[in-house]
């Protein structure tokens, strides 16, 4: 745990914007733009893939609320919501997070890509290939019910002779 920089931030509640039982929201200490916020699971997970589905749902729900706040209080013109899954996708830290990046007109941030031409045949091949792989998509893992804790009955003092009398089956 202590190996992870962001687990450390969560522990210290560094730059905290919001938290609930499973998630932690902080102002990014390494911002892409002013007001860059990261939304993370409290439980350590190296990539989004390792975060349970129901927590991912929460992360996006909270990221969306952060977007609204970014528009309202920072007067941003736009937001980018970004997850970098893997080093090749730009992930820098060993803790899964959803980035909310406030954007302004002509802010000079280089975010985007050059659209490529794709041939009809390539697209069809890809469609078939991915369709095969998405069969399990949409089946979500839900939170396991916590075991209900029933308070153990306290040790009763030796029964009073009068009570004993009452409980006696006639």
């Amino acid at each position, binding site marked *: 745990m202590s190996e992870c920089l962001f687990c450390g931030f969560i522990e210290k509640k560094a730059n905290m914007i919001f938290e609930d039982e499973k998630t932690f929201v902080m102002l990014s200490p390494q911002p892409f733009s002013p007001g860059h916020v990261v939304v993370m699971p409290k439980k350590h997970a190296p990539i989004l893939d390792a975060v349970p589905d129901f927590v991912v749902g929460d992360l996006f729900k909270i990221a969306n609320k952060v977007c609204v706040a970014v528009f309202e209080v920072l007067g941003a013109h736009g937001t980018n919501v970004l997850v970098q899954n893997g080093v090749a996708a730009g992930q820098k830290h060993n803790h899964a997070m959803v980035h909310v990046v406030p954007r302004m007109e002509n802010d000079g941030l280089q975010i985007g890509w050059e659209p490529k031409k794709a041939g009809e045949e390539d697209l069809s091949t890809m469609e078939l290939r991915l369709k095969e*792989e998405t069969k399990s998509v949409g089946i979500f893992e839900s939170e396991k019910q916590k075991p209900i804790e029933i308070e153990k009955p306290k040790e009763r003092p030796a029964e009073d002779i009068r009570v004993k009398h009452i409980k006696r089956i006639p």
Partner: protein
Amino acid sequence: MPEDEEQQCVFCHIASGKIPAKKVFEDDKVTAVLDINPAAPGHILVLTKEHVAIMPQMSDELIAHVGMIAKQLGSTVLRGLNVEGASIFVANGMAAGQRAPHFMLHVIPRSADDGIALQPSDIKVDEKAMKDIWQKLAAGVAKQFGKEPPQVSKPIVEGKSQEKSAPKPEAKKPEKGSDLDSITDFLTGGKK
């Protein structure tokens, strides 16, 4: 959202299946199709069936659903296409790179040095400015949840001390189109 806007929205028609597309996944809330102008092979667009222009118009339930689908499609791409990474990306508003008046979430297969710019570098931030933003955002987010904002202290800033290599902003004029304009209005404070 006016009804005729919905009827004219190409992405609504793609999501509903009226316009054919390379569909890789569908359920009652979303349709996932291949981008015909992909950033990389296997680039998926997740479209909501309900006409939503930007994320903040979505219900908690819908965005949570879209997020979970995005995670699973990301995993699908990682395993199924054997790529090194997967980016999940949303642009809300033209300033953020949104091109169409319908919400879409991108799932993009990634490989090292693929030239896709979804890893912006850190900017240098002033501690005082950061604290001010922190305070504002903590209050703004707390309001969204109907809670008290957390205490704000000295912000942790671990930005690299490198100067931000400010790329030349391209003064792109917004394309003509009333749909996009109305979204921009929405984003710039002409709140509904």
